[in-house]
C-alpha cells in the first residue's frame, strides 16, 4: 500500500493514499476571521472553494513553516449525508512516499478523545511512525464545526 510521508515539525507522519486527490504547492489562502487557528483559510482550487487545515497547528499548536516542501495535500472525503468534498491539509516536507504492507499497520488500541484520527502506527527502522486516519480526521473536523455541540475552546 502506498503511503505519503510528511513531517509536522520534527515528527514524521504518514497517511494512506486512498483519499488523496492531488498534492499542490503552497498557495495564498483566503483567511476567515473568528475561525479556529488550525483553519488556514479557503483555497480556490480549480474554481471550487476548498477549506484548508494546518495539520501542524491542529496537532502541535504551531503553524507550518513556509518552505518549498510545505505543500497542501488535497483529500476527497464524504461528509456524512453529503456529496464528496475536498479538504486541504497543509503539512511540511511532503517529499516522499513509501510502500507498506497492510499488516505493517498496527492498531494502537488507545483512542484519544481529541485525536481519534491517530489510531494506527507503522514500524520503520525501529521507529514508530504515526498514521493519520483521514476518515476520522475529517469526521473530527466536521464535529468541531458544530459550535453548539462541542465548543472549540473545549477541544484543547
Amino acid at each position, binding site marked *: 500500500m502506498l503511503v505519503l510521508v510528511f513531517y509536522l515539525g520534527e515528527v514524521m507522519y504518514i497517511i494512506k493514499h486512498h483519499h488523496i486527490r492531488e498534492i499542490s*504547492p503552497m*498557495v*495564498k489562502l483566503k483567511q476567515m476571521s473568528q475561525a479556529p487557528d488550525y483553519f488556514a483559510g479557503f483555497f*480556490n482550487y*480549480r474554481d471550487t472553494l476548498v477549506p484548508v487545515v494546518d495539520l501542524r497547528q491542529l496537532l502541535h499548536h504551531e503553524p507550518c513553516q513556509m*518552505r*518549498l516542501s510545505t505543500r497542501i495535500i488535497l483529500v476527497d472525503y464524504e461528509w456524512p449525508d453529503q456529496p464528496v468534498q475536498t479538504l486541504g491539509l497543509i503539512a511540511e*516536507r511532503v517529499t516522499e512516499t513509501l510502500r507498506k504492507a497492510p499488516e505493517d499497520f498496527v492498531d494502537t488500541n488507545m483512542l484519544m478523545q481529541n485525536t481519534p484520527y491517530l489510531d494506527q502506527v507503522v514500524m520503520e527502522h525501529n521507529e514508530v511512525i504515526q498514521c493519520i486516519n483521514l476518515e476520522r480526521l475529517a469526521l473530527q473536523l466536521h464535529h468541531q464545526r458544530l459550535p453548539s455541540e462541542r465548543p472549540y475552546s473545549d477541544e484543547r
Partner: protein
Amino acid sequence: MEPLKLTEKIENCWKTQGVWSDQGGHCERLAKVIHCRNCEVFTRAGRRLLERELPEDYLQEWTAVLANKKNDELIGTVSLLVFRIEKEWLALPSLLFAEVVDNARVHCLPHRPNPVLKGLVNVHGEVQLCVSLQALLGIESCDVEVPTSVSPRMLVMGEPGARWVFHVHEIDGIHRLHPSQIQAPPISSQKTGAGFSRGLFAWGDKSVAVLDDELLLHQLSRSVQ
C-alpha cells in the same frame, strides 16, 4: 532542521570527490553505492534544496495556476472528415481518404444502367471508378442555398488499387471527436441512409451522421459487380 537560505552553500562532495569530480571518484562511500546518486549524502542535499524558504511571487504564481480549471483532453479521439451531400451532413474517418480533388468530367460506361456507378474519372492520369454516394444512401435531391464560396468537390477514398471517387456538395473539414460524443442513431429513424450510419453527433447547428465505413465499402463493391 533550520531553514536554508537561498545563498547558503551546500557541500557538493559529489563534484569534489564523487563521480562528477575531475579526477574521477575517489570517495570511500562510492565503493559501496557505485554512483553518487545512490548515496545518502547526495539525496539529503537534494532534499535540503526543498527546505528553502519560498521565493518571491511563488505563492501568487501557484495561486493563479491552481485557480484555473484543469483542461482534460479526451484520450482516444477519432478524426472524421465532415462533408455534405444535398442537405445531409455526413462523416467518415479521415484515414479512409486519399485526397480531395476538383470536380472532373465523368465518362459514362455504356450499357451499365447503374445509378450507383456513375462511370470513370481521371484522377492525376489514373482511371478511377466514380460512384454516387447519393444514390447508394438514397439521398433525395433538393435545393439548398449555399454561399458562393462553397464549391462542390470530389473525394477519393480507399486503398490504392481499390479507390472510389464520389461527389460531395460541400466539405466542412476534419474534426476530432471522442466516441462518447457520438450518439447511437435512433432505431426508428427514417432518415436517408440510416442503415449506413453508425451514429450521430451535433456539430454547431448541424446534425452529422457518421457512416459505417466497412459497410459502405462492402456495399460499394457489391453494387458495381
